[in-house]
């Protein structure tokens, strides 16, 4: 689906930092949704190419999230 952006998640780092809720809240284009439990998040594929590269998710969970620009690879 997404052609330009990929979001890499490290589930355990997110859970450890308790960052799931924060991720859902900070992303301005709703790329993160609630995961299986309240410690994890899932990715809404349809929204990934909308990523504004605002870095708020990576600030919220520096170890748990990485935003990759596919056009730079």
């Amino acid at each position, binding site marked *: 689906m997404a*052609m*330009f952006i990929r979001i890499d998640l490290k589930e355990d780092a997110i859970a450890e930092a308790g960052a799931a809720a924060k991720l859902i809240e900070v992303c301005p*284009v709703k790329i993160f949704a609630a995961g299986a439990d309240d410690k994890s998040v899932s990715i809404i594929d349809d929204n990934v*190419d*909308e990523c*504004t*590269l605002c870095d708020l998710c990576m600030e919220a969970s520096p170890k748990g999230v990485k935003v990759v*620009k596919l*056009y*730079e690879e």
Partner: protein
Amino acid sequence: MRFYEYESKKILAKYGIPFPKGGVAKTAEEAKNLAADLGGKVVVKAMVLTSSLTDRGTVREANGPDEAAKATEELLALKVGALTPVSVLVEEQVEVERELALQVTYDGVAKLPVMIASDVPRKNLDDVADDTPDRVKRRHFSTLHPMRAQTFRCKELVRSLGLGGSDLNRMTQVVSKLADAMLEYDLTVAEINALGQTKDGKFIALDVNMDMEEEGRFRQGALLEEFGIPMTETRGVRGEPTPMEREAQAIDADDPRGLISPFVEFDGNMGLVIGAGGGSLTIFDAVTRHGGKPANYAAIGGNPSVKKAQRLAKLVLSKEGVDKIAVMSNVVSNTRADLVARGVIKGVLELGLEPKEVITIFRCPGAWEADAFKILEKYGVDYCDRSVSLSEAAKRAVAKVQG
């Protein structure tokens, strides 16, 4: 958004401003019946939108039902600009002693609403003011106070027109109510272009004209519903929107992020994804100046989502005879070049086309251009930066389309 006169008069009714008895007819037969019910002489008015706010097309006087039917037939067959009348308004003919003109609108220079009155009726008030300035009186008023706290301003206006006695008090009420209507219903202009005064001194609105600001549509849902005007009815003087224009509106409505409107279809073969507001006007001028034949006008602004840019590109390319698009913009600061690039490339690819074949030029420098350039390079799309002026970019794109 323009109102037909019968709708404007429904607004007057809410404020108790009197107007002649009458009704709307869509056929000669209906008009005949209306005229019969009204009895006596009637006035038949074509309901059609024109580019001038004041001149709403043609009016006929008719003596009795048969004449009314004949007048209606003639009026409904008229061609006024791109439009034909949708119906006629049949009204009783009211005997009046004199006629005045009254308008409330906004004064963009003073940045205040203003009420304007004249003893020259049935003319464009701006023209009257140009030709005979002393016959047009103005009074600014305030948006911060309710009309009941500034009726004196209406009174001052009426007095300056030379009215006194009970005429003064009666007309003051009309002015104040009309101003109320303007503020309440998001009108940009509310005009009684012929305000008659009958023998017994009463004022009656003979000729009425109102325009609501376009954004008012979203706030005045109740009024539009009452009038039976669907949200999709555009009321443009260019006529009904084309299916492509409708589709563009739908795309805009689906997603609040950014705007791709206004979108207007033209006859040419060069698809335009251009923006934003002012940039679009400048680019469209530049394209036509260099001999290009635009297939459409589209403004992208307010930082549209990737999806929106994608759908816009697809829409433009779906038009018969359009196989190339130009993506051009002024130096952007809010709208992001990279998101636009993502969107248009995604749109082109979804149609199974090659971005580097289809996109003649991408000139969208500014916010996030470095990322945009990387994306464009990856897909081999011809792009230029800010050192290439808009006129130059338009020229290059036109040359490619014309091959």
